[in-house]
């Protein structure tokens, strides 16, 4: 039932367009930049009319950056792979640890339970720089500096609290009686957790996993301090474009487009999945 007048529709359309333009502009601009040379990007006044070139992308893929001062080796594809590896492994481990923990915090009352949950959340309060100095000293002693294992471990500071608290909320929203009904039908606690609780909380788990992935992907300081070039993700790798002969804007833009793609695809996929999960799991009563 639609009772909106034509004027209302018009105003709404205009407002939505304005918002979309506002938010999409930087992305579109970067997309355009990625097909331009540094000279055409930096010309004054700027213009949207240019001769497109794919040389920025070629430079990234081949690892050969040509600047005014000569040719440079690039590690970008390695950085991209590092990002994928670090973020996915961190999220997978955080899910394995966090989902059962979230269930425990949601369902069982135990001594210091709330305090432990809050302590885990408080990892997110601390500025990363505060923990980095002691952490880098420990990592040196333990031999974890510049290893994937060490970075994935540190990334748990980002992923675990997020997953724990979001998924806990989802478990708390599930009626315990649905689990009770399953248990009284002859199933053990673990079977119920696996067959009822996790499937019903799946939209929440997916959302939490997606958010954790994005946060891990966008992390900068941990990898900057704790890893060197061959283990660093794209966020740190992008620093390579600030060269002695100037900032390579075109390649930065191409790198950004490259690094947006995985999270973008994941978000699109998860969004469809979330809607599906929610419509299936409509719990009434």
């Amino acid at each position, binding site marked *: 039932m639609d009772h909106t007048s034509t004027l209302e529709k018009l105003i709404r359309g205009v407002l939505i367009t304005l918002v979309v333009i506002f938010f999409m502009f930087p992305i579109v601009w970067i997309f355009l930049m990625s097909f331009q040379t540094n000279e055409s990007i930096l010309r004054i006044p700027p213009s949207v009319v240019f001769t497109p070139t794919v040389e920025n992308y070629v430079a990234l893929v081949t690892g050969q950056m040509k600047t005014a001062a000569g040719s440079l080796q690039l590690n970008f594809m390695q950085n991209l792979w590092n990002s994928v590896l670090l973020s996915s492994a961190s999220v997978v481990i955080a899910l394995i640890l966090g989902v059962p923990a979230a269930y425990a915090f949601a369902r069982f009352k135990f001594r210091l339970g709330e305090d432990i949950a809050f302590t885990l959340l408080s990892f997110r309060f601390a500025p990363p720089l505060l923990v980095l100095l002691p952490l880098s000293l420990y990592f040196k002693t333990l031999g974890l500096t510049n290893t994937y294992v060490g970075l994935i471990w540190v990334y748990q500071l980002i992923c675990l609290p997020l997953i724990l608290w979001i998924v806990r909320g989802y478990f708390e929203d599930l*009626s*315990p*009686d*649905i689990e*009770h*009904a*399953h*248990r*009284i*039908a*002859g*199933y*053990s*606690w673990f079977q119920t957790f696996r067959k*009822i609780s996790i*499937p*019903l909380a799946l939209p929440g788990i997916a959302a939490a996993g997606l958010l954790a992935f994005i946060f891990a992907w966008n992390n900068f300081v941990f990898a900057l301090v704790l890893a060197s070039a061959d283990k660093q993700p794209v966020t740190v790798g992008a620093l390579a474009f600030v060269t002695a002969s100037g900032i390579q804007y075109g390649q930065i833009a191409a790198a950004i487009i490259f690094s947006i793609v995985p999270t973008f695809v994941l978000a699109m996929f998860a969004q469809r999945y979330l809607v599906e999960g929610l419509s*299936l*799991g*409509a*719990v*009434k*009563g």
Partner: protein
Amino acid sequence: MAELVLNAVDKIYRTKKKAVHAVKDFNLTVKSGEIVALLGSSGCGKTSTLRMIAGFEDVSNGTITLGGKPIHALPPSQRGVAMAFEAYSLYPPLTIGDNIAFALKAAKMPAAEQQARVKAMAEMLEIDGILNKYPSSVSGGQQQRASLGRALVRQAGLYLLDEPMGQLEPQLRAVLRGRIKHYLREHTCTTILVTHDQTEANALADRIAVMEGGVLQQFASPAELKARPANLFTGTFIGEPPMNIFDATVESNAKTVTFHVDGGTVLSYPASEFSAALLKQLVQNPKVTLGIRPYALHAGKGPITGKVVSCQWLGDQTHVAIEVGGRTVVSVAHERIREKPGSDLSLSVASGDLHIFNRDSQSAMAHGGILA
């Protein structure tokens, strides 16, 4: 089918700040094949008791045995108990039919038998038309019946029904009550029914356990509960409209027993209408509380006088509210009474209809002139 025994069961909920004693020293024996209703107001401990029997709550003290086997330490899956939940708790991704068949599947029953049972159960509950639908797309009443069917279709030692018909429309409820009672009888199902609806408890249960404040007040048949309430709480809780209550002081001699009711009314009866043992008790405890059921208060000539507050004809009975000595009492008559609000009305009550309670302990002293 098995006998259920709760022996000195306690439930204490502990939080950081306080401990709530939800169920206190609860003793109950449900015979094999018996239908027992737990009746009480919200928060009286009836649901806690049910959840302890099902295994969703730990027992703080005491034991629970089913068929002679202690079950209070077993996980719910091993207790052999079926339960219908107040909030239905159907599995959202399964159809109504699959929900009902769920436990049968878990018990690895042959598919043909599963289908036959689910179909018969659905027909009894009048939900055979929605077996292929999902819980989210059917009404609350249909979900409730599916939840009830999911419990009843199982072969269990004990059936726990938590407010199983709360969401149904009255007409359907009356029909289903009959069918469910027949079904439970036919299969000699030991059943505990939790409800706050007296009609439902009366219609379904062999015996009713009345609970209040976590304490079992009385465990008796519906008729016994009404005729011989064990204490003031049961007396006022059972019966609709509730029992009228008067504080009175008793004066008795060889010929008459006189109740001086607070507010000025005086009720006198020949001493011969009371047993000797009761008369002796009344001399020792002259401060009593009188309970009079609304249908025992007869309009017409009598010692109780007051002003009519309201007079309602309900189609088959009249409810008259009368202001007597500063309090409102209710009288129910099966004939039509026409009284205008504000008019004077006299009421009488026979000694045989008096329930006498000890005012201090609130326990029953006598019903109808005979010691309780």
